[in-house]
């Protein structure tokens, strides 16, 4: 029996069980109703805020799909292995020609495919934004690819944890905690680490002094002041491990004539890229030199163009996380088993 055949049989067995479960359809139905309601609300409400066209709506809907997808996937994957053990069907699979690698990979693929069914159910609403207009096709396409990838990562974490932890409820909850750590924890760590790392800025200034007796302006002496500023630039990769930031960073951005962004993705992308730019620590303001003018602030396009695309860093972190969990899961289900988790029964 070839390796791919083994995976195919496991995937088919897993999906066959889910397709037969009523609860899966109910979950899918509830999900479609929620996505539909959100889409319609956004299509009606967002233009009132001045976010014209489908671009703003699309990015918001994609975020909702990511949110709901990462909420549903742990439930679909987090009991894949220990649930079978509780049902008494894991060991009967392990005494066949299917290796533990094929078994875990098959379970991961099946969990991913069932999570993708939820994504597929939301495609009509994403397509609606496309039809309503204002959305570039590549934005739609890239955000779909990132969604597929992210659901895969959560499915991999869920399946891996279900092999490592004994109780299904525990592994599902831990999978949710991993999703929360990525979605919220990364933001908190980024902000706190940035605040904890302060740098001293030396500001040297001179200015026109009109207080002279003859009313002539003279240049003042250079004055130096120091103050501290938080440093976020060493931590920008943490921010990129956030799936929402990753998604925004990966999608191609549309700029208007002034070089500014018009959708949620663009705004987040500019903010995340800004974090890469180290603050200037030696600032010199010469208000005597009138020829220089005031420094212009950079446009969104300039910020984005001057920084490194961060999505591949976040993507790599997620890839390593998912692959690592699946790898550990394979190791934990290897038979003949030498080590068993305390309190677990093999059969």
């Amino acid at each position: 029996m070839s390796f791919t055949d083994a995976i195919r049989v496991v995937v088919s067995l897993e999906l066959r069980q889910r397709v037969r479960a009523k609860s899966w359809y109910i979950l899918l139905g509830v999900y479609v109703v929620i996505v539909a309601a959100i889409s319609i609300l956004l299509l009606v409400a967002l233009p009132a805020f001045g976010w014209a066209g489908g671009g703003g709506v699309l990015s918001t809907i994609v975020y909702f799909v990511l949110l709901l997808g990462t909420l549903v996937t742990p439930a679909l994957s987090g009991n894949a292995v220990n649930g079978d053990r509780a049902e008494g069907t894991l060991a009967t699979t392990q005494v066949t020609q299917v290796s533990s690698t094929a078994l875990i990979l098959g379970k991961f693929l099946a969990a991913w495919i069932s999570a993708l069914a939820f994504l597929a159910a939301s495609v009509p609403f994403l397509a609606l934004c496309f039809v309503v207009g204002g959305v570039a096709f590549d934005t739609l396409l890239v955000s779909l690819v990132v969604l597929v990838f992210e659901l895969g990562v959560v499915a991999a974490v869920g399946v891996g944890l279900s092999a490592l932890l004994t109780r299904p409820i525990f592994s599902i909850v831990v999978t949710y905690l991993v999703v929360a750590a990525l979605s919220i924890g990364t933001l908190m760590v980024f902000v706190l680490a940035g605040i904890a790392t302060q740098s001293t800025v030396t500001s040297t200034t001179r200015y026109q002094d009109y207080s002279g007796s003859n009313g002539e302006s003279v240049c003042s002496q250079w004055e130096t002041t120091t103050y501290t500023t938080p440093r976020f630039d060493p931590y920008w990769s943490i921010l990129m491990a956030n799936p929402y930031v990753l998604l925004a960073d990966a999608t191609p951005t549309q700029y208007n004539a002034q070089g500014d962004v018009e959708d949620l993705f663009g705004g987040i992308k500019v903010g995340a890229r800004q974090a890469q730019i180290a603050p200037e620590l030696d600032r010199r303001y010469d208000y005597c030199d009138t020829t220089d003018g005031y420094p212009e602030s950079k446009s969104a396009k300039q910020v984005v163009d001057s920084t490194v695309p961060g999505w591949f860093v976040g993507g790599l972190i997620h890839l390593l996380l998912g692959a690592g969990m699946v790898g550990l899961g394979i190791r934990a289900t290897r038979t003949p088993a030498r080590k068993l988790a305390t309190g677990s029964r093999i059969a």
Partner: protein
Amino acid sequence: MADSGIEAVSLSRRFGAVNALRDATFTAPFGAVTALIGPNGSGKTTLMLILASLLAPDSGTVRIAGHDPLVDAAAVRRTMGWMPDVLGTWGGLTSRMGLEYTGRLHGLPLDVSRARADALLSRVGLETLADQPARVLSRGQKQRLSLARALIHDPQVLLLDEPASGLDPSARVDLRDLVRELAAEGKCVLVSSHVLAELDEMADGAVYLDAGATVSAERLDRARTSLRWWRVRALDHAETEVALRRIGLVDSQIRHDHLGVLAPVRDETDAAALLTRLIAEGVRVTSYSPAVGDLEHTFLDLTSRRDDDVVPPRPADPAYRADASPPPSTTAFQRPARDDSTPEEDR
């Protein structure tokens, strides 16, 4: 092909502080049914899991049809069928589908899998329930499904862990016939059970596990040749008692249960001698048999002695034996103290 289906040498396995298996050594031949007997917690299931290639022993060696599960688990699994003591069914799948999937997990082509599933469903008497979801089956029906699953790839070595539990009497007879048929086909069958009377009827040999170790041959011989009670059923029990006293048995050597009168017997020759005497005394015997089965007798004897030297209560040599010792005291059945001089029948 190897000479024996199962060869286990000095197997041991501990779980944390618990020494589940200390020293299991035995062989089980092809073409025969071997019973695996031991009290609860003696390590039967641990031993089964090691033989089923699910658990690695801490020390010792296993060969299943000549293959070492630690070296080539796939070869072991091709030739070994395992029926676990835990009954698991894949949620929502019908019995037929579950069997087909098991076949495919074993690497059988779809059509072969289908044909085998059909044949086995009728062999275990589940054809009418084949297309019902497996989870609605009764315990006994699940048991039969589990047996069919163990047989799907036509294994040469069968490991049946408590196959008879939950079966009604007629299903037990069917099981016994099926197990005998499988042995007649040349397979090596290892059966563990608590229902010793049943194993008596189907097993050709037995392996006794006591506190994680297989019982040595000489200890087994001692246990087997110890005195045992035979039950005499007659039209008139009072008549039997009178006859037994006339033959020379004292009060302590005559017992009663709800079915008849019990008398101590050492072996089959003794049993025949006693029956001849009873008939000669004019007792109208309707039935004459051991009060407990062979395996149960040995089992009880072994478990009551363990490793200490306390002599358990057992009948003294009866009077009808040629080499009978002098009539014992009336307290012969009471548990003697350590320094008691009661004749030790089984030493």
